[in-house]
């Protein structure tokens, strides 16, 4: 009966307020369902790892896993450091340091390491071309024409500072975020 039905189009404050409250609840429920796909506490706990450097002698290198990726840690000799420092940045195919601890800086050897620890080179051991793991960590490995690392997949050569010198790789090997928690221990990530 139209006589006893008011205009249903009239929206009063109470109805609007109730609907708004209900909608807010529905919207706030969404966040947990999105956040659950983010890395869980277990993954976050492994987001950083501490490495003891004492067993690594000069001229030696180790590979550690960090966030599922190999990380090269090399205790460079004075000769290797010298050789890296001599190279003018303009000669480099990739002039950017690719160091997350010093973003955007030019690819001098200083910028590839941390201040006061130039003998220690820490890089993500994934070739920036198509993702193979370059050779050069162990003493018996071939080190390529620049004495650093050599990627056997497509022939990229990296120097003693991990910078690309020859071959198809476009960028220097990435330096991950890391700090020295003490002189003999680093924390990556």
């Amino acid at each position, binding site marked *: *009966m139209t006589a006893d039905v008011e205009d*249903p189009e009239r929206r009063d404050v109470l109805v609007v307020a109730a609907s708004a409250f*209900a909608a807010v609840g529905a919207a706030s429920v969404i966040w*947990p*369902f999105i956040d*659950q796909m*983010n890395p*869980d*506490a277990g993954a976050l706990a492994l987001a950083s790892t501490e490495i003891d450097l004492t067993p690594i002698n000069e001229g030696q290198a180790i590979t550690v896993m960090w966030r599922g990726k190999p990380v090269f840690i090399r205790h460079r000799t004075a000769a290797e450091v010298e050789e890296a420092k001599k190279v003018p940045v303009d000669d480099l195919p990739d002039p950017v340091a690719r160091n997350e601890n010093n973003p955007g800086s030019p690819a001098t050897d200083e910028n590839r390491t941390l201040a006061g620890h130039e003998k220690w080179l820490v890089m993500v051991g994934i070739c920036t071309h198509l993702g193979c793991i370059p050779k050069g960590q162990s003493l018996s490995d071939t080190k390529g024409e620049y004495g650093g690392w050599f990627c056997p997949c497509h022939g990229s050569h990296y120097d003693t500072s991990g910078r690309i010198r020859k071959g198809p790789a476009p960028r220097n090997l990435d330096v991950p975020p890391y700090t020295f928690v003490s002189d003999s221990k680093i924390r990556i990530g």
Partner: protein
Amino acid sequence: MSSHESSYEPKSATAKWWDERLPLPRLMNDQFIDFPTPRNLNYLWTFGGILTFCLVAQVVTGIVLAMHYNSTAADAFNSVDRIRRDVNFGWLIQPIHAVGGSMFFLAVYLHMFRGIYYGSYRAPREILWILGVFIFLAMMATAFMGYALPWGQMSFWAVTVITNLFSSLDQLIPGLGTSIVQWLWGGYSVSGTTLNRFFSLHYLLPFVIFGLVILHIWALHVCGQNNPSGVEIKTKSDSVPMYPYAIAKDAFALFAFLIIFAWFVLFLPDYLGHADNFIAADPLVTPPHIVPEWYFLPFYAILRAIPDKLGGVIAMFASIAILAFIPWLDRSPVRSTKYRPIYKWFFWLLVFTCLALGYLGAKPAEGTYVFWARVFTFYYFAHFLIVMPILGSMETPKSLPGSITESVLGKGGSKSHSSGLGGAPAGATAAPEDR
């Protein structure tokens, strides 16, 4: 779909474009906005909406849990533990899913008892009711397999006990039961193989339920909803448009339901479960008391009440199957128990019976518990097979109101919407509501 005229008028050019190609807005308008719903519905009619919410909640939380769950015997329990401890908001999402299963059954039982009380299964709603029985069966299968997934002690042993039931078929055809059980298990005992296939089917069945629900709502909308008087909609004054009237009630009822849901999830997440399921499954250690989740307890009581194994299995399945026949077992001339004062007692006795069976299902099958389980099992079947047909045809019902409008507004326009005995019986004698 339903027999009333579509009142939808596409207003914009886009709306007209859609209307000519895939008239979803028209469907939404005709079925869920302008749809005529009886004006005298009480809050027991809000459970359809609540159940839809429960299904969506279970599917959403389930899909998200499946991103982290591992369905191998070696890691299932650990993966659920990891979800609770490490996954962001896992401590919230997992109990929503677990408690949600219980809430789903709470709502479905209230929904079913509403249907029985008001004769919502009567013609022309038989198919609607039977679809409901199938949805209930699918829910039970889904819940049973879902409970296996955490692979705790109760999960493992509940699966062992219930799948072992099928071996009773050996009494009918030698070897048949054992073959079926091994086929279910995928081996000679319950193992990770069983778990894996239960995970697959547990993921599948809710979508089968979803399809059945669509058919259920379709069947409902063909004849329209029942109402507390059992008298169908005849004139426009008998109904109100679904939006905003029924939607407003559904929204309020849903949030009231959510209070209970949230109370359990956030303050009592383990209350409805069993402590033994926090012990990893061990095939060599049987828990002292194997009990299913509360919503299966009445059926478990019926199963154990019959001394013969095959008999118990048949009785258990029969207790669900019999529901499908109610539309034909009930011989009363009126739909709604409101007008059947004697039958009303038996209805509440049925409710008490189901509660009693639930209580007994959790008790050990010994002594006086077995006796009472048998008494109540007898009454459960007697209610449908004896009381419904015989009392139905014998009892003289109270006079029905002439219409829904009359039951709401009364003959003289006074507000009375409970007993429907509005005034002089002129023209209000019970017209048998046949087809």
